[in-house]
């Protein structure tokens, strides 16, 4: 596992949560605040290992809940529930295709807020819900879907620029070279 990739993902999550709490432009233009953590979880699940997924679910959820009025820890489970199935089936997913990233980003961005709301409602919390919530979910899904391919490009570029690349061993080894020679007759 490349620890730099994990650090990069966590740093992005930290900045994303901070941005969501300070930038009010999406709320005033679109009527809903966007959430980039589900899209980031799609990237982590397709490109990193289990520890990264677990750390992103834990820290991303805790950071989000800290800056929100959510009960602390309620956002952890939805993020984990998004990351695990994608990780388990990632060999079957065409992860390099932007369309696959778009679809996964849309699904993750729709499921995460729904699960969070469901958890809080089952815990007896009274939330600000109404017909406008449907519009907010549509906005979150659409923006999450569009943002996912960009996050893939951004993270890959940052990884290439800042991280070290794993050394690829060449197939050629001198000691395994077959000595060919014609037998002298």
């Amino acid at each position, binding site marked *: 596992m490349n620890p730099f990739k994990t650090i990069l993902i966590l740093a992005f999550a930290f900045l994303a949560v901070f941005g969501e709490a300070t930038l*009010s432009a999406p709320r005033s233009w679109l009527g809903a*605040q966007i959430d980039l953590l589900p899209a980031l979880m799609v990237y982590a699940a397709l490109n990193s290992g289990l520890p990264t997924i*677990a750390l992103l*679910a834990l820290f991303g959820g805790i950071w989000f809940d*800290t800056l929100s*009025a959510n009960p602390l820890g309620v956002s952890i489970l939805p993020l984990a529930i998004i990351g695990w199935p994608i990780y*388990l089936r990632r060999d079957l997913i065409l992860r390099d295709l932007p369309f696959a990233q778009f679809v996964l980003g849309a699904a993750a961005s729709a499921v995460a807020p729904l699960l969070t709301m469901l958890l809080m409602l089952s815990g007896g919390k009274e939330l*600000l819900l109404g017909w406008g919530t449907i519009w*907010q979910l549509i906005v979150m899904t659409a923006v999450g879907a569009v943002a996912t391919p960009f996050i893939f490009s951004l993270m890959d570029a940052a990884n290439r620029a800042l991280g070290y690349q794993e050394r690829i061993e060449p197939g050629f080894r001198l000691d395994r070279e077959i000595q060919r020679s014609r037998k002298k007759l």
Partner: protein
Amino acid sequence: MFKQKNYLALGAVVFVAIILLSLPTRATSRLKLAVGSWFLPLFGLAGAAQQLPADLADSVLPRRELLRQIDALRRENQQLRSQSVQSIAIARENDQLRTLFNWQRQSKWQLKLANVVMRDPANWWRTVQIDLGTRDGLRVNLPVITASGLVGRVSSVDKMSSQIVLIGDPNCRVSATVENATRDMGVLIAGGTLDTSLVELTYLASSANLKPGQNVITSGLGGIFPKGIPIGQIVDSRSVEYGLYTDARVKLNANLGSLEQVWVLFP
């Protein structure tokens, strides 16, 4: 082996989430305070970045414009001074009359200015954070206003910051009075999810005489908000529950969507 590792990692995450969710409120708020302090340097940077364009704009303003602004501010200052003198005289007279009639004297409220540093990232809450905390004397349930009207109340306090729950959030209910002949009273509850400027005034009497444009102010009941703080104006009303009571939509005076500075009221 692979499957076992998966389940262990998932189990660990679920375990931590359950532990956090089952923590008592006090421990949770302390943990939130500790984790929230990680964001403090970024808040400082964001504040400085927001201030930069304003500073640049100030530095390039022409001298004539500055002189015009100074003149306008001087005039406004004189008007406010004369109004202040009048209100001091009225307050003194009110105190004297209250003493004469043996009524309890009204306590004076003090104001403290706070900057809004953050909004709730979740769409299902309406809260903001301000840069005043326990070190500034803040405590839970203090009213928060702007020059236009009521904004909300302090819901939780840390050392250096506090969370304000705004009107329209399910956790902020305000007892309100309509300024009409019958002084109809109701309770302000959450309004629409998209429009932050509209809230619902409910449990009004079925005989309430409501007209669009009538002012709504705090009633003083409930022990949190003092009487007479302007809230907004009636937009429309309708009879609900087969005429049992009346609901009205209220357009808030304060623009909750673009709060930058608020005043915290201290008794």
